[in-house]
């Protein structure tokens, strides 16, 4: 359902999702994602100003729930502006984010 690729030097985290991201699945992955984000933020100091970058890779996703949309929003709010993106959406998924009014905000591509 979720695999992480972490590039510590660039403070870049890619979350690769797959399958159905329904409410139940989202309950279990939400904490996992937030923990990873904490890890990513660790080591950040005033002298180390590299901004973290987070991508949600949707290439293999077949369904998203409202809970997943909320995870996207929370992650966006916890990340530094402009450094969160939802990538590899198929057109259908893009439309879902469009209907939710979030495609621009969340940098859906």
């Amino acid at each position, binding site marked *: 359902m979720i695999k992480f690729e972490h590039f510590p030097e660039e403070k870049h985290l890619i979350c690769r999702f797959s399958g159905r991201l329904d409410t139940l699945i989202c309950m279990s992955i939400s904490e996992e994602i937030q923990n990873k984000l904490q890890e990513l933020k660790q080591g950040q100091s005033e002298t180390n100003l590299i901004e973290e970058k987070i991508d949600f890779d949707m290439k293999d996703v077949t369904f998203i729930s409202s*809970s997943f949309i909320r995870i996207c929003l929370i992650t966006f709010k916890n990340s530094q502006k402009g450094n969160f993106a939802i990538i590899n959406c198929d057109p259908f998924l893009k439309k*879902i984010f469009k*209907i*939710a009014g979030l495609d621009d905000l969340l940098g859906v591509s």
Partner: protein
Amino acid sequence: MTEELLKKADELLEKALFAAAVFQQFDQEQTDRIVERVFKAGFNNRVKLAKMAYEETGIGMWQHKVLKNVIATQMVYDDIKNEKTVGVISHNEITGITEIAQPLGPIFAVTPVTNPTSTVLYKTLICLKTRNPILISAHRGALKSCTETVRICYEAALEAGAPDDCIQIIPAGSREFTQMIMSHPKIALILATGGTGLVKAAYSSGNPAIGVGPGNVPVFIDVSADIPFAITNIILSKTFDNGTICASEQSVIIENQIENTVIAEFEKQKCYFLTPEEIKKVERIAISPDSGTMNPLIVGQSATVIAKRAGIDIPENTRILIAKLEGVGKDYPLSVEVLAPILAFYSTKDYHEAIKLCIDLNYLGGIGHSVGIYANDEKRIMEFSQIMNAGRIVVNTPTSQGAVGGIYNLLPSSFTLGCGTGGKNITTENITARHLINIQRVCRRKPNDKFFAFDSSKYLDESLDVNTIINEYNKNH
């Protein structure tokens, strides 16, 4: 205060919008599974919800509210269960047009105190069938029973895999809050059933709306009618939930040649004809003198309760109070819509006078709604039907149960009855699932042979008149 309300409205609408987005992913089978589960849950709770609604509102009869809940679940479900509402819904090889159904988005549903739980059940089913999240604003007098109805439907929907927040009820709030939601840019459609003020507010909101307001249903009993049958059906309808359906009969119109028979039959079937003095007393408690509209305190009360409040003595088992009136309009307060077992009664000198009176009554607050006729003369049925301005002309049938469909005819079962432009509506139809989808049409190339065979430069020649061009255009076809 306004900012707080706006924030609350935004939160509700954001949830609804997410539900709308998620709903896009559901196919017909998944959608139908949700609808079936919600129908069953609503149906299984029909008695409990009816009793709750009755106890909370004090309107109508719980036994009849059960039947309303049955119409809103079993009949509505029967009507919509096989309808295609997702993806490709039709394809026509001849025209080359394929139709695709798309959901509308969040629907704001306002429900009345007279049919509270049934309207929630019905609107929820048609919204889910079309993959639209629904936000319900219940009348404050029926908030508890509507909240319970929503809880039951929402739990069933979630169990069947529906999106989170696909059904929400807005908390008790001010009129300002309701208006704020109505005009919120994220609302796709308002489905308003209620009084004139509410419907007007829906149409003034700036969002698309289907708003259905009051009726004022005249029923003509023709000389060709089976009179005892007609009276039995009128009573069955007018006493249904103590007259709270907006399609219930408001006045009976006859030719005076059958007056004695009709009056005798009404009396035989326990209806009471008020004296002129008693009419005045009933008017005082039934109609507000300022607005000239019905007093909400008598809505859905029984004939005996109304008589007691009016201070008149009537036989104990009286079913309907009947006021014989000489005219229509503000000088005859009981000629307007009264959602209680009170009927206006008119006896006219002939058929044409009767029909002219029906027109006046039809246009007195009930344009486009429903009318009724009892007759066994097809010519008169059709003449009456073409003269009246009504979405539903209900023939030899109780108008309450007839207009809502599903029991006495094959009209779509509905608790929101379109009244056409006369009622400021876009349709005269009974509102159902098919009104809650956007239909996209894929139009494949099917060239117009006549157009392409015609020398279109002739359109530029001013000396050619319409007949010449049309003859040439149709040549060899």
